[in-house]
């Protein structure tokens, strides 16, 4: 079975993750949760762009602290379930060298209604950027640089509220 949360170097597969979210990733869940009450799926994919901050990007390299990244992503799944009980999400993040146009992350949210699906999906990507220990090194024409965003702190309630507000706005 495809897991709901994964970090690895294989290309990402949105259709497979969607099936996992709709049917439940654990075989025992599948009978109970056929996903037939789901009326909406919202998905997100992050792609490698060919430019950033005026630089021409050649490719990106993603590095993860995998066991902690998995835990942080599982935490995001639980946070989303608490905020939108009818929604279920799955997220996969890729590592290693990614070429222009390839997906670095995919997120799928399923729910009875579209409002919760969109909100849970948006919340998840905002939280990934806040607390998941993954880094990208940008290889551009002329050099390379590690990009740095948020200082990860899962207990920072202000950051969590910010993600929630963006998702629900």
């Amino acid at each position: 079975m495809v897991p709901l949360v994964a970090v690895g170097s294989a290309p990402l597969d949105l259709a497979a993750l969607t099936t996992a979210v709709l049917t439940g990733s654990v075989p025992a869940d599948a009978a109970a949760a056929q996903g037939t009450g789901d009326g909406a799926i919202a998905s997100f994919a992050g792609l490698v762009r060919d430019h950033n901050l005026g630089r021409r990007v050649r490719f990106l390299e993603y590095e993860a602290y995998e066991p902690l990244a998995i835990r942080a992503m599982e935490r995001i799944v639980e946070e989303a379930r608490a905020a939108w009980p009818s929604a279920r999400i799955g997220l996969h993040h890729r590592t290693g060298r990614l070429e222009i146009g390839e997906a670095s992350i995919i997120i799928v949210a399923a729910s009875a209604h579209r409002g919760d699906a969109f909100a849970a999906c948006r919340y998840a990507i905002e939280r990934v950027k806040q607390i998941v220990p993954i880094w990208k090194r940008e290889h551009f024409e002329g050099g390379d640089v590690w990009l740095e965003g948020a200082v990860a702190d899962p207990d920072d309630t202000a950051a969590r509220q910010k993600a929630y507000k963006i998702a629900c706005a």
Partner: protein
Amino acid sequence: MRVTVRFFARLRDLAGTGELVRDVAGPATVQTVWTSLVSEMPSLGEYEKAMSVAVNAEYARMAAPLREGDEVAFLPPVSGG
């Protein structure tokens, strides 16, 4: 006691390695290990104010106590997604 130290992303570049092992006198905290590492590799110091730490692959605070065999990780600001 002996702990494993892990560095990621630019901290790994600055340290010149992703992993090293250090013996520290107990009782020790994450801060103890970090202070020792910065005295050894001063360039790491710039991250003190903008860094997360983890012990045994769980987020932790600088004041977290360490035990024999722990894995301590120093994490620059994240940039996934």
